[in-house]
């Protein structure tokens, strides 16, 4: 079964994949804040403050006003992850992180940052079996 076919069988989730890129005409804070502004009808100021707080948690608050082309792939990934956390869905699915972040060798630093950011959501990482070696020794359970 293909990854996306499997994802479609799951309940409500927020997706982080190549098919859900950041919006290029918004900066990083606006990309994150947009979800809360629309879903929870928060004011722009409140939603952007929440976005800034999350960026500060992992020490990348300096990229808040940057556009997509001014950030590296790791920063973009973190912003996509924070954006996923902003939605009401309890499941966050990350699809093939090694294709999203260039030159990533070890998944553990990503998992550490996810643990700092996450507040009670289920985080699922979907990857191909060929990337199995990248996950060996990591702190998260692996299900084949």
């Amino acid at each position, binding site marked *: 079964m293909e990854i996306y076919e499997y994802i479609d069988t799951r309940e409500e989730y927020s997706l982080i994949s190549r098919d*859900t890129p950041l919006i290029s005409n918004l900066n990083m804070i606006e990309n994150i804040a947009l979800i809360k502004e*629309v879903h929870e009808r928060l004011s722009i100021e409140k939603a952007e403050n929440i976005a800034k707080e999350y960026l500060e948690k992992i020490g990348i608050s300096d990229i808040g006003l940057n556009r997509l082309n001014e950030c590296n792939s790791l920063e973009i990934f973190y912003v996509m992850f924070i954006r996923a956390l902003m939605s009401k869905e309890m499941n966050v699915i990350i699809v093939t992180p090694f294709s999203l972040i260039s030159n990533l060798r070890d998944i553990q630093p990503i998992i550490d940052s996810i643990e700092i950011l996450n507040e009670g959501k289920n985080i699922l990482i979907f990857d191909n079996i060929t990337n199995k070696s990248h996950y060996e020794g990591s702190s998260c359970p692996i299900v084949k």
Partner: protein
Amino acid sequence: MIIRFVEGIGYKTVSTLSSFYEALKFTFICLVHMVRPSSYTSAMRMVLTKQIYFTAVTIIPLFVMMAIIFGSIIIGVVIALATQYNLQDSIGSIIITFVIDEFSPFFTALLIALRSGTAINTEIAVMNVNKELNTLREYKIDLIDYLFLPRIISGIISITSLSIIFALIMLSSGYVFTLFYMNMDLHTYKYILINAIEVKDLIILLLKSIAFGFATMLIPIYSGLKTGAAYTAIPISVLNGMVKLFIAIFLIEVLSLLIQSL
């Protein structure tokens, strides 16, 4: 051979009617969202403000300059012709009908279509190809509320307000020409215009501007939305969108002339 020809005609007709129905459905959905208060979220209002700024405010210097140059020349020609054909008695209604009912909304719509219509068509097409529209769908952000409605409303507001500015500039230029051709003083010119203008003229200006504004934004958005998955589809989408938009602008103009002549 004949069967294939007839089948070809049938296929073309069905696909044309089907895409026309799709476009009408899209227009109807946009109109429904426009009157729904829940569409107006803080994010939508922010996009609307930005769109009004980019569509109506940044263009003002260029627009005023074009209004002074083209508007003055055209109103000058109209006044010169009216004088040549001894129509001085009707000069007020000629100026009002030409400037307010016809030229101002039409010229403004053409300028905004060229400037913002192409930009919006490209923007939506690029977002479509880059899968950014898919992102919005995945995160359950209504494309119409967040992306399309602010652009459509900004088009309506921008074309209406710029048409009024254009009409005022043309009427001011009209005074200069009536002064030279008819030795008319400012007081008389104002008196003639006030006597000639009717509520009907203002309603026509308003309705035409709204129709132009709606079409000028809706057609490029729809065209951008229908772009294929490749970057090479973007110029084709813009080209098709612009051709459809210009046909729609001329159609609105012709329809308004027909309705006025009834």
